[in-house]
C-alpha cells in the first residue's frame, strides 16, 4: 500500500476494554484534503476510534498511520501534525479570545510573529474584532464553536479531528461552521469528523457508518443512498442502525 496518497490509514484497528470490544477491526484510508465523515449512534465506538487515531488511547491491536507516522512508534510526530476539537467545549472560559489563541498557538510552538499574524487574521475572519479581549464565557455558543475550530487549525495541521463539533449549535451556525470546514479542506487539511446530525453527513466527501464497533459501510453519501435505495442519509443510517445489537 502506498501511504503517500493517504493522510490516514487504518488496518484492523481494534480496542478492547476487558471483554467488551469497543472498536472491532476497522480498516480505511483517508486522502489528503478529504472530508471524511464518521457516523454512528452513541456507543457505536466513534469516540474510542478517534481517540486511538489522536494518540489519546492505545489500540489493543491493528495498525494505523497518521500523516505518514506510525501511531505506536511516532506519537510525538503525529501530535505536531494534527489538530483536535472534542465534543466537550475546548476553550478556556476564564481567558479572553486573544489569550486562548495565544495559548494554543504557543503550545504548538508557533513564533510570536506567527501568533500575532494568524491570531489577528482569525479574529478578522470570524468578525470577532469587538470581542477579542472579552472572556470566552461571554460568547454565544455558535461563536465559541467556530473559534474552537479555527484555533484547532491555527498551526496548519495535516489533519484535524472533530469529535461531534456541532452538537447543540443552531442550524445557521452549523452551516457557517461547515463553511470553515470546507475552507480548511481547500487549504489541503484533511478533516475527520464525527457527527450525529445526518444532514451534515451529506456535506462529507465520504462517509463511514459504525454499528456495534464495526465499520459497516464506507462510500460517498450519494453512493450509500443509491446502494440502500434511500433518499436521504437519515434513512440510510436508520436502516443500518436498527440492526444494532448493542444497547446504549
Amino acid at each position, binding site marked *: 500500500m502506498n501511504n503517500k496518497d493517504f493522510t490516514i490509514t487504518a488496518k484492523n484497528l481494534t480496542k478492547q476494554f476487558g471483554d467488551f470490544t469497543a472498536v472491532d477491526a476497522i480498516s480505511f484510508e483517508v486522502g489528503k484534503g478529504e472530508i471524511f465523515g464518521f457516523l454512528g449512534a452513541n456507543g457505536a465506538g466513534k469516540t474510542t476510534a478517534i481517540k486511538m487515531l*489522536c*494518540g*489519546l*488511547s*492505545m489500540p489493543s491491536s491493528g495498525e494505523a498511520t497518521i500523516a505518514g507516522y506510525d501511531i505506536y512508534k511516532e506519537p*510525538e510526530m503525529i*501530535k*505536531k501534525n*494534527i489538530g*483536535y*476539537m*472534542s*465534543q*466537550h*467545549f*475546548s*476553550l*478556556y*472560559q*476564564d*481567558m479572553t479570545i486573544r*489569550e486562548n489563541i*495565544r*495559548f*494554543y498557538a*504557543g*503550545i*504548538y*510552538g508557533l513564533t510570536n510573529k506567527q501568533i500575532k499574524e494568524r491570531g489577528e487574521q482569525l479574529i478578522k475572519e470570524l468578525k470577532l474584532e469587538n470581542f477579542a479581549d472579552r472572556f470566552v464565557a461571554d460568547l454565544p455558543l455558535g461563536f465559541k464553536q467556530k473559534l474552537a475550530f479555527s484555533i484547532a487549525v491555527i498551526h496548519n495541521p495535516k489533519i484535524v*479531528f472533530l469529535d461531534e463539533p456541532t452538537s447543540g449549535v443552531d442550524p445557521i451556525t452549523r452551516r457557517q461552521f461547515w463553511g470553515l470546514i470546507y475552507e480548511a479542506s481547500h487549504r489541503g487539511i484533511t478533516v475527520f469528523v464525527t457527527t450525529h446530525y445526518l444532514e451534515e453527513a451529506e456535506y462529507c466527501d465520504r462517509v463511514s457508518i459504525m454499528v456495534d464497533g464495526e465499520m459497516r459501510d464506507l462510500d460517498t453519501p450519494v453512493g450509500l443512498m443509491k446502494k440502500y435505495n434511500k433518499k436521504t442519509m437519515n434513512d440510510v443510517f436508520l436502516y443500518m442502525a436498527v440492526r444494532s445489537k448493542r444497547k446504549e
Partner: protein
Amino acid sequence: MKQFIAFIRKEFYHIFRDTRTLVVLFGMPLAQLLLFGYAITTEVNNAKIGIYNQSPGQYSNGLVDKMVSSGFFRLTENIYSEAEMLDAFKKNKLKLVMVIPTDFESKVNRGEARIQLIADGSDPNLASILTTSAEAIIMTWMKGNFTQNLDIETINPQVRWHYNPELKSAEMFVPGVVTIILMLVSAMLTSISITREKELGTIEILYVSPLRPVTIIIGKVVPFAILSIINTIMILGAAYLIFSVPVNGSILLLLAESMLFIMTSLGLGVLISTVSDTQQTALMLSLFGLMLPTILLSGFIFPISSMPLPLQIISNIIPAKWFLIIIKSIMLKGVGIAYFWKETLVLVGMSLFFIGLSIKKYKIRLQ
C-alpha cells in the same frame, strides 16, 4: 521552553481569575494565623476565678489581692458556701476557686496553713495551666510575707522553658500554620486545578497537543510551588509583625526546607488528581486524606509522644510530622541542618516516592 511559558501563563490566568483559589491562597493563611493567634491560645489572661474565703483577715485578704492583681485572674465572684461554688461551676461562671479554710489566719504564721484550689476539669488543659499559675502566685506571696519560714522550706525548683521562655503560644502555632498552609495550597489546589481540566474536557486538548505529559504536570505544579514559597514568606512576615515571632535560625535554610516539603505536597496533589475525575473528589480526598491527618497526627496540636502506639507509628508516614520538627528547630531553636538531617532525608525520600509514583500513574492513565 516557549510552550512551557505559554502553559505557565495560562495557569496564572486561572489562578488569579478564580476568587475561590485566591481566597484559599491569600485569605486562608491570614485567617488561620489570626485564628490560632488570638482564639486558640494556651496562654491565660483574665481567667474567671472565685474566692471562698472562710477566714477573712489581714493575711487572707492580702493573698486575695495578690491573686486578683496578677493579671491572670479576674475575680468574678465571692463565694460563701460549698453549694454556691458547685452551682457556679455548673453554670460555667468560674474556672477556678481558691478555698481559704477557717484556720488559715491562725496557722499561717506557723507555716502550717493550707489552701485548696478547685479547678474545672472539663477543660483539663486550662485547669492545669490555671492551677500552676495560682500555685506560683501563692508561692510568691508566701516569700514576700514569710521569708523566715521559708528557710525551712524544701527544695524549690526553678523552672525555665528553653526556646520559648515565655511559653508564648504564637511560637508554637506559627510553624504549624506554615505546615498546614503549605500542604493545603500545594496539594489541594494542584489536585483541583488538574481535575478541573478533566471535568471541562480541556485536558484532552492538552494530551493531543505536542506538550509532553511531564511538561503538563510540571506546568501545573510550578505556579503553586512559587505561590507556596511566597505564602511561607507572607506568613512568617505576618507572624513577626503581629505576634513578634522571630525566625531564630537561617531563613534561607528554612525556605529550602519548605521547598522540599512543597515538593512532597505537590507530589501528593498530582497523585490525588490521577485517582479522581472530579474537583469534588479531589477536594474530599485532599481534606480527609491529607488535611485531617496533617492537623491531627503531625504533632501540631496533639503531642505525638502522648498518642497510643499505633497512632505514633502511623504518624511516621505523615510528611508534615517531619517538616514540623525541622521548621520548629529552625524557628525556635535556631539550629542548623546538622540537627535535623535525618528528618530532611525522610522528606527527600517521601517526595521522590510521591513524585515518581504520580508520574508513573499519570502515564498509565494515558493508555
